[in-house]
């Protein structure tokens, strides 16, 4: 790959996040190539050294990219992780595709009792944010969720922490009220 193409790929990734490329595209320098589970294309994720990543900002006490509702969004990502990462000993990418209902169920467990409408609203808002940033891939029409290419940027020690988190969280099967057919939105407990 030429230097120009590499620079272009980096600029693209900077402006639009993880790149979806057709199958067979070589990965530019410093980028992580994540094959799609379907074999149809791959993702390119820029992987900067640890000393230059976003987490350095937190260490230095500098403001990172602004994230609205950081706690709910983090909880939603954790819920999606709990559902899409079937086996925490396996690699995190690509995970499995799940319906949104169990993710929302786990999210509801984690956030505690809330108004059904507020719960739904914060979940959708979080899904949009995470989908836009490449943490999750949310297929709005099919209403399915899977992990986004950015999750591959978590390093080994991060993954250890995440495994602990995974084990501490209620699974999609144990969440009450989730015995309904997967792929359907959760039925509100009581009609408003």
């Amino acid at each position, binding site marked *: 790959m030429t230097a120009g193409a590499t620079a272009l790929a980096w600029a693209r990734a900077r*402006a*639009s*996040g993880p790149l979806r490329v057709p199958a067979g595209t070589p990965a530019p320098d410093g980028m992580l190539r994540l094959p799609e589970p379907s074999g149809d294309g791959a993702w390119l994720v820029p992987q900067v050294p640890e000393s230059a990543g976003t987490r350095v900002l937190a260490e230095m006490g500098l403001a*990172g*990219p602004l994230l609205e509702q950081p*706690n709910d969004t983090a*909880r939603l990502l954790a819920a999606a992780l709990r559902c899409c990462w079937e086996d925490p000993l396996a690699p995190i990418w690509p995970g499995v595709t799940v319906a949104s209902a169990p993710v929302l169920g786990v999210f509801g467990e*984690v956030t*505690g009792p809330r108004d059904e409408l507020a719960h739904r609203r914060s979940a959708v808002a979080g899904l949009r944010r995470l989908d836009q940033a490449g943490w999750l891939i949310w297929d709005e029409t099919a209403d399915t969720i899977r992990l986004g290419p*950015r999750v591959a940027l978590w390093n080994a020690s991060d993954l250890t922490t995440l495994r602990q988190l995974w084990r501490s969280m209620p699974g999609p099967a144990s969440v009450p009220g989730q015995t309904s057919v997967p792929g359907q939105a959760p039925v509100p407990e009581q009609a408003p």
Partner: protein
Amino acid sequence: MQQGLDDLAGEAAVLRVYRQAFAVLAREAEKMILSPQLLDVDEAILSAFAASGSEGLTEEQVRNTCRKFPEATVSRRFEVLKTYGAVSKVFERPNERYYRAAFAPYIMLLFLRRIAERGGQSELHQLLSMEHENVSAATATEADGRASVERLTQVFRLIANELSIMSLGADVAQLRENAQLLWGNEPLISRAEAVHATVLQRWPALDRECQWLRAGLAAYRDAIDAAAGRLIERAGTTRALGLLPAEEWRSFARTADTERLGAVLDTFVFDAPAPWFDPQVMTEAVESGGRPDTARMPPPRPAGDTDPADGPESGPVVDQDAIRRTVEDLLGTENSVEIEDVMRVAPDWEAARRVLAQLTAAHHDPELPYSLSWGEGLSVAESGSPAWVTPGRLVRQQDPS
């Protein structure tokens, strides 16, 4: 159909010019044009006449042709046009039903629409060219030159006055709205100067009139500078891009297609939204989820208070135990005790004070089953310590269970 602000502004401009021009003609207030739609009605009536042919139209026919407008409006406008002579009877006799239209009102309409579109500047340019032609013509006389220079002086004085009054007094929005109609024309001034030069060269006797024209032009130039200065100054404080009002930017944002809108930001690169999720932070978020918000503001404390490390968390518990112990010591097996007795037992005031503080604390602590009630009066003992005591009683509340 939703109209943009630009459209409304355009209509308002037409209306303003129309009113100004017709103010000379209108004798009664309700016969002034009050809404831009009426211009369309007029135009429709006039075009109905244009299409009618040589025998003219009856009022009913006009109404029928203009049936897309409300009938009452059409007949009212018809009356107004009749009053002003824009529409008149084909033959001047009673019971004549056919009318014909004059061409002048339609010319006026066209002219007004053009002035409104171009702000009257192109008309001013044409006027200047015409005046220049007039004064350069071989047949022109001194009287023509004088009249020409006087007309131009009038025009520039009017513009300059309007602009300078506005630049002094009007608010910026109004200034902005009208500025385009009035200013910004070096060629306008240079053309007027060309007329001036020609006149002065051909008829040196018109020196005085030419001086007035020069003064008028200078006033116009000053007014332009003042208005521009004010607008630029305001643009600097509002950080408005260019001198366009915010509404225009808003309607641009609403009406422009994607390419044009995107072209504004062609030279900018935005980073993709890339928040980082630290697993530790996620764990904390998950653990704190489901609990009500526990972050509370600490109560204000005087500066230089005790080290916040041995904070209030450990304090109350220890205090509670100490208080309970003290009070139980005082009560013993009894359920109540007189405050006077307790006070008198204490060896000195310091000790009594300490006990009193503990009892008060016990009374106020909702978790401790003690209450303190005070009686009336004072019991004084000259030699005692303390020398006076208010009678009171400490009661252990019976456990309801």
